[in-house]
């Protein structure tokens, strides 16, 4: 199949180009020239287009394309900025797909769209989505709207839609500590040090996304792409510090419920002092704190069973042997 990949210049995008080619697809990779995109290796079956969904000729971009893998999204900025940089370009892409007649879409979303206070023990594809978006961060708002639009267009036009929600993506190039804790000077405060992390290696995640393109079983499905939840936050943070992938020097453990209690108390006090619209850092907003640090299990059986996905590099084993990553 000929696949249009948006956001191809990013960390996950470059791995997805490789995975799509490995699975026999030809790729039209859309890269933004001035947005930190790194060159991707050109190889047979990869056509590079420089541009941006907000200004590119989308009909031309979609010409002869059988499927779209939509990865492009903004990660920074306030609610309006992320909405304008994530949702509006997605809307333009969906309109163009409807015009041109492209009927297969794989959307790469995020675990953030779930309501993290709802599950009792496990976060699965059937867990409820966040409905009180005003309490969540700009990224969650924009990704929720992005999913909402994609589902609406797919339903209206009878497209094949598959949504992939990756866990914490890591690889040797990059390993984020956002979901692990909070930086305080040269220290990393590890929130809920014993909780399990929903880690997915970037190559493994890319393979899952690529499998969704051609798989009949993926039609109409949502998959949480998680290698395993074997790794604990404390150990992961220590490993990244040891390998020099974080500039933090030491870890400080903070029990999850203690941090949540502080957030609840601070918000209550701040509301009493400054009114209901009080502005606080995300770490002090209980809903956002839960979405980052709540201890849950993260089963991955659905993607394995329906897609035949085999998490290629397990996070735990890759950490032990970095050469495998």
């Amino acid at each position: 199949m000929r696949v249009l990949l948006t956001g191809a210049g990013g960390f996950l995008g470059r791995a997805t180009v490789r995975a799509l080619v490995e699975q026999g697809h030809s790729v039209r990779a859309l890269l933004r020239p001035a947005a930190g995109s790194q060159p991707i290796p050109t190889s047979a079956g990869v056509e590079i287009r420089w541009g941006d969904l907000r200004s590119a000729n989308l009909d031309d971009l979609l010409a002869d394309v059988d499927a779209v893998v939509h990865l492009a999204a903004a990660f920074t900025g306030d609610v309006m900025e992320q909405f304008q940089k994530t949702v509006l370009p997605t809307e333009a892409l969906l309109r163009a797909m409807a015009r041109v007649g492209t009927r297969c879409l794989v959307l790469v979303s995020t675990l953030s769209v779930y309501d993290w206070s709802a599950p009792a023990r496990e976060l699965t594809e059937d867990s409820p989505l966040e409905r009180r978006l005003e309490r969540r961060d700009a990224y969650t708002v924009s990704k929720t709207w992005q999913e909402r639009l994609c589902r609406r267009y797919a339903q209206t036009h009878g497209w094949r839609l598959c949504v992939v929600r990756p866990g914490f993506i890591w690889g040797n190039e990059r390993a984020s500590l956002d979901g692990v804790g909070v930086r305080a000077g040269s220290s990393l405060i590890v929130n809920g040090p014993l909780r399990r992390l929903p880690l997915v290696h970037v190559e493994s995640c890319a393979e899952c996304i690529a499998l969704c393109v051609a798989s009949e079983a993926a039609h109409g499905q949502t998959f949480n792409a998680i290698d395993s939840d074997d790794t604990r936050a404390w150990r992961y943070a220590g490993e990244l510090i040891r390998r020099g992938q974080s500039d933090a020097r030491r870890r400080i453990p903070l029990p999850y419920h203690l941090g949540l209690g502080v957030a609840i108390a601070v918000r209550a006090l701040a509301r009493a002092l400054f009114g209901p619209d009080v502005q606080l850092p995300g770490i002090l907003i209980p809903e956002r704190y839960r979405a980052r640090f709540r201890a849950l299990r993260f089963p991955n059986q659905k993607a394995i069973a329906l897609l035949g996905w085999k998490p290629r590099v397990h996070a735990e084993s890759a950490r032990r042997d970095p050469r495998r990553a």
Partner: protein
Amino acid sequence: MKVAVVGAGRIAEQHLRVLREIEGLEVGVCDRSPAAAEFAAERFALPRHYDDFERLLDEMRPDVVHVTTPVDAHVALASRALARGAHVLVEKPIAPCHADWLTLCEAAASAQRWLIEDQPYPFSPPVQRVLRLIESGEFGEVVHVDAMICLDLAAPGSVFADVHAPHPSHAQPGGPISDFLTHLASLCSLFVGPHAAARTLWRKRNPQSALPFDEMRALVEAERGTATLAFSASSRPDAFAVCVQGTRMTAAMSLFEGGLSLQRRWPGNPAWTPLANGIATGGSHAADALRSLHAKLSGRPLVHEGLRELIRRFYSALRAGAAPPLRPEQIDAVSRLMAELTAGLAEA
């Protein structure tokens, strides 16, 4: 009263926040992007949202329309709303050029509807306080106004420097700086009256900048005094500093933070004046900083207080059947000055 907000972007958010506070309004929102219109409607709990302005006019029949789109759509949308019998509030700048403003003004006159521009800073609390001092005679006559905006428009992530989705202001003479000229021109016109002549200097200080110009200076001779107006994309920190010099007092305002300090001649020995002014200024700055912090924490940053006051006065006037807070001749004076400040740039 039925109100429509056309354009659901960043500034529309501020209009919708204020409209939410005014009782008795039924508000709808419209945007070319159905998602943007729906997003705004959901966030502000609005019962109606549209992606077609004509359909909005047909179904809603609004009494007031706020035009908050990019400037190139202002004239068409405002004209249409006026023709359908709505009063109109248009975001700044009200029109891409002075001739278009005159066209709009005529349309409002023939429709017998009010048309005002969002000129927020004349309605901000510090400016209003200075106006009261001038009115009472305590300030004396205004001699000179010095207004300078410092904003890093070319910073990474800035909408004005996004090469992938060029900001509509790039089509205006002077580029994105033109988007801020209304603020400078409205304060100049407010304090020293309509301009008689102006000399300007436009520069591109940073050759790597995505902006056509990143610095602007102007010296204005006006009916009641003089003004120096400036915009700098290089000076730090971000600020909107306005100094009004009068025959009895000088007012220094920081309009992004809502700050004001006054320098005056104190009674008694003139030798004590610098000390007394120093103490008073220090006290003002401390109080302003605390007020600004409180406002930011409360989710009501002072930078938007002027817009809030303008909209509230507009609706009070409409309900009372009185004249709106900005008269056409005031908007005209600002539009003429802006045309003068950018004269020659379009050709260049």
